[in-house]
């Protein structure tokens, strides 16, 4: 549903910090990977021992010679085990399937100045943007929030390449990035891009809005991982199929497991592609996406299958 997929081989796998691992991938079936603009992400299909996972990862800056993709994956305690699998089971020579890149976080080409804000592993798309802006000789600054220096992925590279454009905030000594303080007098043609933990994104966007910045000048990449929950049954009315969504599985993954082609793009609750009409339900929907409006959530007749679940027994979808 979401375009072409590629079979790739991992050509490099190296630790960037103690908890971040970088993978470089190259197509193996004679295809070339298409160029990807900064801010793009791909979906990795991970064959973990227990289940098939499809996780979205932002691409790191593309190499100048092209043809390869790089992602950086943070080891987390997520219940689904995706990041653990990347860290423990993938190495040079591993083969996997990835999707065509999709860009839901593009650089606004009409802006004259770009403010990039990253928190932790949120640096991946932000680093790609910095590199693209740097190569195009555009005006930008990069604000990077890290726990401490050893924890700052790519920190040395970024500083060496972008010099004074890089501003650091160490959370272990209580430093915080605040829009009012860090960006008191930004030119009117500025755009801000933020990627990082949910709480940080929310704070940055709220601060900026309170200072009169327009929504149209603010851009955020919020990838949610589906997160588990109690199992429930889903009935696909049009396909006439019933399946149980497991505790570590997303609704979308369960639908795909039974061979139904459901729309999706970001798999992270951001793009709106996977929106599905709810025909019937015997519980309440746990909306975990960033797409539906408050009214739509309350109406309860639509669900974003990539991240949201039912708290109940049975959900019937128009699929």
């Amino acid at each position, binding site marked *: 549903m979401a375009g072409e997929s590629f079979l790739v081989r991992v050509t490099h796998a190296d630790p960037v910090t103690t908890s971040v691992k970088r993978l470089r991938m190259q197509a193996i079936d004679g295809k070339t990977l298409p160029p990807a603009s900064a801010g793009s992400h791909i979906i990795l299909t991970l064959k973990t021992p227990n289940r098939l996972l499809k996780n979205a990862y932002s691409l790191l800056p593309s190499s100048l010679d092209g043809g390869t993709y790089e992602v950086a994956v943070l080891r987390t305690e997520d219940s689904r085990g995706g990041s653990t699998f990347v860290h423990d089971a993938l190495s040079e020579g591993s083969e996997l399937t990835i999707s065509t890149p999709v860009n839901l976080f593009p650089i606004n080409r009409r802006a*004259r100045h770009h403010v990039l804000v990253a928190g932790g592993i949120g640096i991946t798309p932000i680093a790609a943007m910095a590199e693209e802006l740097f190569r195009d000789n555009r005006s930008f600054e990069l604000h990077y929030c890290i726990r401490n220096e050893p924890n700052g992925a790519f920190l040395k590279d970024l500083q060496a390449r972008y010099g004074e454009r890089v501003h650091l905030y160490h959370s272990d000594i209580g430093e915080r990035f605040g829009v009012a303080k860090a960006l008191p007098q930004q030119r009117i*043609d500025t755009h801000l891009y933020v990627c990082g933990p949910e709480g940080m994104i929310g704070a940055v966007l709220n601060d900026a809005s309170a200072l*009169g910045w*327009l929504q149209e000048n603010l851009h955020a990449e919020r990838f949610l991982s589906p997160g588990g929950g109690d199992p429930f049954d889903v009935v696909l009315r049009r396909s006439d199929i019933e399946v149980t969504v497991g505790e570590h599985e997303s609704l979308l993954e369960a639908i795909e497991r039974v061979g139904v082609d459901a729309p999706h793009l970001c798999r992270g609750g951001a793009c709106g592609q996977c929106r599905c009409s709810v025909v019937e339900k015997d519980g309440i929907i746990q909306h975990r996406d960033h797409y539906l409006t408050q009214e739509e959530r309350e109406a309860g007749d639509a669900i974003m299958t990539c991240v949201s679940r039912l708290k109940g027994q049975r959900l019937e979808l128009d699929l």
Partner: protein
Amino acid sequence: MSDIKSRPIWGRIRPVAHAARHFVCCEGSSAARHVAETFSPNAEALKQVTILYGNTDRNEEAGHTLDALGAEASLHYPTRQTLLISFKAHLKRLHMGAQIYLCGPEAFLNEATAIAESHGVLKEAVQTELCGANARRVQCVHCKGLIENVAYTPIACEHCGVNLMVRDHYSRRLGAFMGVCVDAEAPGDLPARESF
């Protein structure tokens, strides 16, 4: 007239409560009075308001109404050109959080919105309201010359002399309507004049 989508739709100016700064640029006495009415109930905001006024119809009284608002700055200019030169200079110094308000005749809005756009300002950061003449800014598509304050169609291009029909086709980048030769088939055979 056809309803081509590019025809600009002007709105209403309304002070945005959370804007860090309000930047008003208006032309003509009716626009000045309207700006004064719109901003006077917002006394709190006025400390962060800058007003540029083009006193193009020589109406000192309307200018005084603006000054009486007590905005941080209230600057007067004698012509559209001088007004817009100042508008550009202020735009360059404007910061994020500012809201821009434009109020005046159509040809003024045409030109001022194009200037804002060329400075990288998003159209969402600019509020507009038509106040005054409907006369348009027109570009002759043949010689590319710009003609100010065109009140009716057809009109002879003041640069190359071609008889132009003013179309509803509008270029946001240029801030002008397109004027296209109307009598190519039968020179001198012009449709009846229509005002905007």
